[in-house]
């Protein structure tokens, strides 16, 4: 039975950063992921990472932009920490080997990004996430003596002891099908977001809400779940992401009539307003019949100098060519808003601790909350690293005064029986894949850019029905070696739990704030709703909903215009 001071579940940026920090803090560390670490979805973050590093910039300015971007739902103590620590984190990355692009003086170069009052986004062409992830993996290989890697292990459940403390996890080695107890003094969830609850989504197939549901199931509350970000520029046809870096480099948005419609909603920031603002503006154009025939809006990159595009936006040149048949250096490309990120997640404090002792969360799986109602572009990479590191450091400190737990082996037998029962299901009900598709398509209809009580009620009923159907959903693969089919069935359960929480939060919040736009409650209502919605599991009943205050340190809510 593997036993470690700190067990990290998920090996994207948050997980890897947590692993390095925990190891530096003197802990024995295991990092586990259902895919090889470099396949993690952090690799898809294209544009860059924010930090107020330039002498003329300030962390306060970065923090204010983030608070405003969050539509004042972000907790300002957490945002202050993130923005204060950002410059040192970016320098740490640079020293570790990230090949950040430079300015003519050879110093770190920046690009502009949405919702920011200064160009403070540091980048590696448009493969920033990939570069960061691969460099962190270099560091993981370097620290192989202190960090054990469990690559392609799938977590099935978190383990609690009799006091309700988290003491490890159960995981299945995908290659062999073997189930194993991982004992740990602390567990850090870093398993990413929940995009696959939607169809289409910019998120990878692996983003199936695993950690959100695992924490929810052991009693950790979720927060801000109604806040789901739609990215303004995803390909019309398949929902692939076109980085905000395109607009950062100067690309423009037009409707079918050739009108630069952002003038109407964000006359100052135009295309570089916050994502929720731009996505809403696009959706209005689409709903009012000013989209192109394919349902899209034109993103015109041709205004950016060709050399600059080839150097700094190469990946979207490829995506345009390979997945839309468009040479973006010559023609506009058609885009629309698409599900991209979930601001909500497992509720944590600024050290990543959840309300379950011994359980931490960092990155997209967590809600601290630094993003509130709407995340700024290039703040997600920062969030993963800052709070990944803080969780790792804190968990390593905790290990010094906690004894190594041990979970009885009988727990494996129960879990194995459950997995075997999924594999053995009769071919009577529905296929797992059919339920997943139905969930995603409906979430994208009823719980998207604009929402209302009727649609959300419909969605709640759909989720409830799908949860029942999932109990008898069947699969084909009866094997043990790389049985991806059975993992898909477990993931479906995770997604349904998460969708239930998203819909419950969206029904609860009777106002419009950030990414949550209720057509039946179109205004922001600070008096009643300047607060977080916390959602806890309530046995088999409807989720339990409570409220918690927003932490405000120095920025009182104002009207939000761009």
């Amino acid at each position, binding site marked *: 039975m593997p036993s470690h001071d700190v067990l990290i579940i998920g090996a994207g940026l948050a997980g890897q950063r947590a692993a390095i920090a925990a190891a530096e803090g003197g802990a024995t560390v295991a990092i586990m992921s259902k*895919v*090889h670490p*470099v*396949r*993690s*979805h952090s*690799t*898809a973050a294209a544009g860059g990472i924010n930090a107020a590093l330039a002498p003329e910039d300030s962390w306060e300015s970065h923090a204010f932009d983030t608070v405003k971007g969050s539509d004042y739902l972000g907790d300002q103590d957490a945002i202050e920490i993130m923005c204060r620590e950002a410059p040192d984190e970016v*320098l740490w990355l*640079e*020293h570790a*080997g990230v*090949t*950040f*692009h*430079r300015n*003519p*003086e*050879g*110093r770190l*170069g920046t690009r502009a990004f949405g919702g920011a009052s200064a160009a403070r986004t540091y980048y*590696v*062409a448009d*493969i920033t996430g*990939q*570069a960061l992830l*691969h*460099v962190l993996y*270099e*560091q993981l*290989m*370097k620290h192989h003596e202190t960090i054990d890697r469990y*690559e392609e292990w799938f977590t099935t459940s978190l383990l609690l002891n009799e006091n309700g403390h988290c003491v490890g996890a159960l995981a299945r080695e995908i290659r062999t099908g073997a189930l194993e107890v991982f004992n740990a003094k602390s567990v850090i969830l870093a398993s990413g977001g929940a995009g696959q609850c939607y169809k289409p989504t910019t998120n*990878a*197939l*692996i983003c199936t809400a695993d950690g959100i549901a695992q924490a929810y199931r052991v009693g950790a509350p979720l927060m801000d779940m109604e806040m789901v970000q739609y990215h303004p520029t995803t390909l019309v046809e*398949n929902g*692939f*992401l076109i980085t905000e870096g395109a607009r950062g480099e100067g690309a423009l948005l037009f409707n079918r009539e050739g009108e630069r419609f952002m003038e109407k909603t964000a006359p100052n920031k135009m295309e570089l307003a916050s994502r929720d603002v731009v996505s809403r503006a696009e959706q209005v154009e689409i709903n009012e019949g000013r989209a192109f025939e394919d349902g899209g809006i034109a993103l015109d990159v041709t205004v950016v100098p060709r*050399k600059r595009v*080839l*150097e700094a936006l*190469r*990946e979207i040149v*490829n*995506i345009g060519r*390979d997945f839309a*048949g468009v040479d973006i250096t010559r023609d506009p490309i058609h885009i629309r808003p698409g599900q991209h990120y979930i601001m909500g997640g497992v509720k944590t404090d600024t050290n990543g601790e959840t309300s379950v002792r011994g359980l931490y969360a960092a990155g997209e799986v967590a809600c601290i909350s630094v993003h509130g109602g709407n995340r700024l572009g290039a703040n997600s990479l920062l969030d993963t690293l800052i709070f990944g590191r803080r969780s790792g450091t804190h968990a390593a400190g905790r290990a010094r005064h906690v004894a190594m737990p041990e979970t009885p082996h009988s727990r494996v037998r129960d879990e194995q029986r459950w997995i075997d029962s999924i594999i053995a299901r009769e071919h009577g009900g529905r*296929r797992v*894949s*059919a339920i997943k598709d139905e969930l995603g398509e409906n979430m994208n209809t009823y719980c998207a850019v604009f929402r209302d009580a009727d649609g959300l009620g419909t969605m709640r009923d759909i989720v409830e029905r799908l949860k029942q159907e999932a109990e008898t959903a069947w699969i*084909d*693969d009866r*094997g*043990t*070696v*790389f049985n*991806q*089919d059975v993992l*898909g069935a477990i993931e479906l359960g995770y997604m349904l739990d998460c969708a239930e929480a998203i819909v419950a939060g969206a029904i609860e919040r009777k106002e419009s704030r950030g990414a949550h736009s209720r057509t039946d409650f179109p205004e922001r209502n600070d008096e009643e709703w300047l607060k977080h919605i916390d959602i806890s599991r309530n046995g088999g009943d409807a989720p339990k909903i409570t409220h918690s205050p927003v932490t405000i340190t120095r920025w009182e809510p104002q009207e939000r215009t761009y």
Partner: protein
Amino acid sequence: MAEFTLRLRRYLPESGEAAYWQDYTVELEPHRSVLEGILQVRAEQDGTVGIRCSCRAAICGSCGVRINDRAALACHTHLSAAAAGAKDGVIKVEPMGNMPVIKDLITDFEAVHWKKVRRVTPWLLPDGPPPEREYIVAHEAMVDVTQPMACIQCGACVSDCLSMEVDPEFIGPAALAKAYRFVGDPRDGQHFERLQDLAEDPHGIYDCTHCFNCIEACPKGVAPMSQIMRLRRLATADFQIDDRNNGKRHEQAFTELIEKYGTLFEAELLPRSYGGKFHPRALPELLRSLPAILKAVMRGKVTAMKALHHPKLPDQKRVREIFETVEGREQRYDLNLYISGYDDDADDDVPADAKAGDAKAEASA
């Protein structure tokens, strides 16, 4: 919508059966990817089909397979293109080469690819403690290493590497491209040590036969072979590393002979690669190569006349002019995707004769 037949290589290790082919028919738009086809099979027909996949957009590097005998990302290959390049229009999909198969289209990356990556000490080794702020380095240097940094570790180049097929211990294209990412990085303090290590290893940079397969297989334009050639140029021209594999001398002999004759004087190449006919090592090497030489004699490839005399090209002067142009440059041109754009683009910033420089680079091995 159109109908496509996918012929998948199946291997179920628990069945005790050998690998076999299984055909599936899918209905999808022609510009959808082979991966979408396989996912449709999995969702609607047969959930037992194994393939690693995640992002669907050629970023995560999970879905490397062989499509119609060539390595590619399944998500990055259109069904129509795959069908057009297939015999009888049947799209053949099988696991990548040079790696053991675990199940169906899933190969053992750890056993081959990652082991090789770890072989090149894949982390930055700067001299001394880091500066207070960032390292000051040229923008161009960072753009330059962005090309190997763009590698998504999909293994396509490893799959189709001919040298690795012959020598499984060859460090290989992906890991060597990764090595260039450090050798080309001005912040790294171990350039010489890294190059010496890779030059002295019999399975290192001189084990590449420049077949171009890796360049063709790479879905991200990393051009691993070009990175290997750049490692060689740095090892030889810049660091003068006299390796025990005779890589440097071989390269020198090659270029000298071309400069002198215009075509390759093969009988002279071998001894010169070992330091000349009178070098103490030449005789044992010659004896070792005897079987190859005898074979060449029997096939008429080597005759006494050809061994002693090699004609110059009639316009040898023009070959020499190429050498003069390239070697007379103040700076070496390295073709880099991020700097130059597409290969077929005329780019104002790359001088017209840069292509000639690159041709030399590739010939100089």
